[in-house]
């Protein structure tokens, strides 16, 4: 009897895992973001409204990050270049670098940083609580390391690139290590079945 209960439990568990596994992309795909308030590199506010109506690639990092951040921003620039044959995609796709180091990354510093990679890239940051409103919704984690010397510290951070659709929902999450080819391929595939309803 006890044996049967265990078997039943195991089978039920497996079924539940199967269901959640198949539903996972659907669940992730429809995650609607709630509002947040950051400051963009030009000094004005950057909120959920700025994500609506466009497809947004978002990457989190900080300017004092010598390796992975410039690598990823260079990669996003390449993604943008690879999308050149699709003018439609190019026009309504934006690239956003959100600094998790609002303390050091002032709008001026962010402006110089993102412009260096692409003048059309958007940089945004804010105070820790402001940043957390967004990172928690996206499952982005960052941990500030102790100072090496005064004012000199590094931040461990999620290397995920998040894609937000024009409705402000998470459309895809690209985990590291990234490749230009896979991002472009997945993105164009997501965009392929363009919704018929133009105005909604």
């Amino acid at each position: 009897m006890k044996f049967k209960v265990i078997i039943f439990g195991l089978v039920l568990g497996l079924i539940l895992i199967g269901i959640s596994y198949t539903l996972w992309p659907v669940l992730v795909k429809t995650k609607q973001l709630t509002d947040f308030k950051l400051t963009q590199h030009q000094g004005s506010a950057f909120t959920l409204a700025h994500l609506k109506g466009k497809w947004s690639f978002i990457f989190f990092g900080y300017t004092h990050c010598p390796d992975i951040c410039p690598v990823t921003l260079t990669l996003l620039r390449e993604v943008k270049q690879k999308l050149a044959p699709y003018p439609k995609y190019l026009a309504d796709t934006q690239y956003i670098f959100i600094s998790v180091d609002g303390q050091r990354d002032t709008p001026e510093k962010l402006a110089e940083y993102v412009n260096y990679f692409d003048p059309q890239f958007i940089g945004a940051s804010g105070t820790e609580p402001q940043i957390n409103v967004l990172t928690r919704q996206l499952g982005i984690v960052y941990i500030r390391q102790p100072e090496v010397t005064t004012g000199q510290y590094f931040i461990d951070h999620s290397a995920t690139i998040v894609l937000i659709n024009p409705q402000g929902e998470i459309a895809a999450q690209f985990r590291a290590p990234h490749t230009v080819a896979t991002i472009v391929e997945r993105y164009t595939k997501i965009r392929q079945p363009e919704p018929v309803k133009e105005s909604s």
Partner: protein
Amino acid sequence: MYNKLTIFFWLVSYFCLSSWLYAETTPPRSGTHLVQIEDGWVRAVPPQLTLTAAYMQLKNLTDQKLTLVGASTLIFTKVEMHQTVFEDNMARMVPVEKLVIAPQEIVMFKPKGLHFMLIDRQQPLTVGDTVTLTLQFEENKTQTIKLEVKEDNGKDSDHSH
């Protein structure tokens, strides 16, 4: 007898000490080719940023193991070896104190991996400039190398094509 022993003691001390002092003041072996550098470059960054990274392919040309313990340059206050690691999709930088390179082994310093972190830039750097880096190995061995400041074209990381 006692006097002779004292003299002997002093003589021995003198020789030991002098050889030790001599060893300490011997100029480090430089100019010799301990390692061969290929595809060395320094990442060009926005002018206001005072830190960047250096990458290269480093081959141990000797028939002994070499232990790389650090590097220095006049252009940056500090140079550290770091390894970018991904753990649970988190990008972290782990300091590397020592790097043992086997005879003839090639070690890759590349984006998203092992790199030299150049900290606290002391003078402006633009694309095309040269950074002279002195690699420091154990046993007081050094080798000076030159690296060009370049834009990242994605070539060295596996994200193109």
